């Protein structure tokens, strides 16, 4: 038992995580900035306007990238939660704790950008009968629920376990969001099949821009989550010698 899972415990050491991410941060930030710039310039200046949507198709590059990444939060929190429940590795819970508010931001931006796009293309800002819209709103509320649950429980170990369970159950909603457009197709369109033909719906001029933006958004997700987790480590390990030395050296 001890031997087989030792690698996991080593990976779960907050100090190891902190030192490793210190080396990663500049690369992560550099790659994110580059791809974000390329994706944004492409979407705003080079993407041809859609024959139906006009220039509002530029919105979709951001919307699709952010929406896709927003679906990764519950699976991420569920994996971290499982590690918390089974191996009681504190680092996993620190990641899960900081993923919830970031996921709420992602869900909110998905709803806001979709709504702003829909106000033109659908002629409505919101539609309660559309399953995709409602299930995404539900994910936003579920994430607020995870945040409140942790805040409401005084015992941090109990809070971690409760949030882990809710995160695992919350994954069901991710499946619902994903397949909602196929199961109950009302307003939101199903994913467009990618095409190699320039000028066709979802041709390379659109999906390559979206793919670049999607990678940029995932890098941003990783960067923001790592920064927040590092803060959590500094606070939870503030009595450790290496954190003290870091604080003295940094000021």
């Amino acid at each position, binding site marked *: 038992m001890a031997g087989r899972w030792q690698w996991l415990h080593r990976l779960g050491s907050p100090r190891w995580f902190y030192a490793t991410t210190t080396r990663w941060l500049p690369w992560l930030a550099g790659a994110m900035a580059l791809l974000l710039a390329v994706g944004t310039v492409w979407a*705003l200046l080079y993407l041809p306007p859609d024959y139906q949507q006009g220039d509002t198709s530029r919105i979709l590059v951001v919307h699709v990238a952010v929406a896709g990444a927003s679906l990764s939060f519950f699976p991420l929190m569920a994996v971290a939660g499982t590690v918390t429940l089974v191996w009681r590795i504190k680092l996993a819970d620190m990641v899960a704790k900081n993923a919830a508010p970031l996921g709420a931001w992602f869900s909110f931006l998905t709803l806001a*950008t979709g709504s702003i796009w829909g106000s*033109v293309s659908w002629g409505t800002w919101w539609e309660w009968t559309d399953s995709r819209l409602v299930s995404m709103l539900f994910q936003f509320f579920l994430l607020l629920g995870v945040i409140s649950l942790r805040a409401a429980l005084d015992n941090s170990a109990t809070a971690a376990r409760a949030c882990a369970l809710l995160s695992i159950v919350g994954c069901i909603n991710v499946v619902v969001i994903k397949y909602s457009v196929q199961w109950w197709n009302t307003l939101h369109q199903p994913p467009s099949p990618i095409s190699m033909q320039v000028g066709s719906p979802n041709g390379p001029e659109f999906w390559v821009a979206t793919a670049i933006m999607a990678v940029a958004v995932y890098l941003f997700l990783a960067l*923001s989550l790592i*920064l927040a987790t590092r803060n959590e480590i*500094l606070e939870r390990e503030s009595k450790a*010698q290496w954190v003290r030395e870091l604080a003295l050296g940094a000021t």
Partner: protein
Amino acid sequence: MLAELQFDSLQEFLAMGGYAFNVWSVYALFAVFVFANLALPLRRRRLILRRLAARGDLAQSPAAAEQSGWEVSTVGEELQEQQREQKEQREQEEQGTKP
């Protein structure tokens, strides 16, 4: 062509084919979202480090540091050495004044 500039003038670019509000509000929201979720953790980090550095008990006893589960660094050892020397000196002084 995969990448062709779509606008002839700055005015045309800003107008976004009549959808200026929709396109620009989305990109503004996106910019705020990216900026906020990087700037806020960085600001919090500065505050945490400043608070930790300002705390009086930073040069805490090595025994407590050992208890925290992390290996004790040389800074702690030096401190321990110093304290031991001071204690010995004090004891010698006390012995000198007794008889």
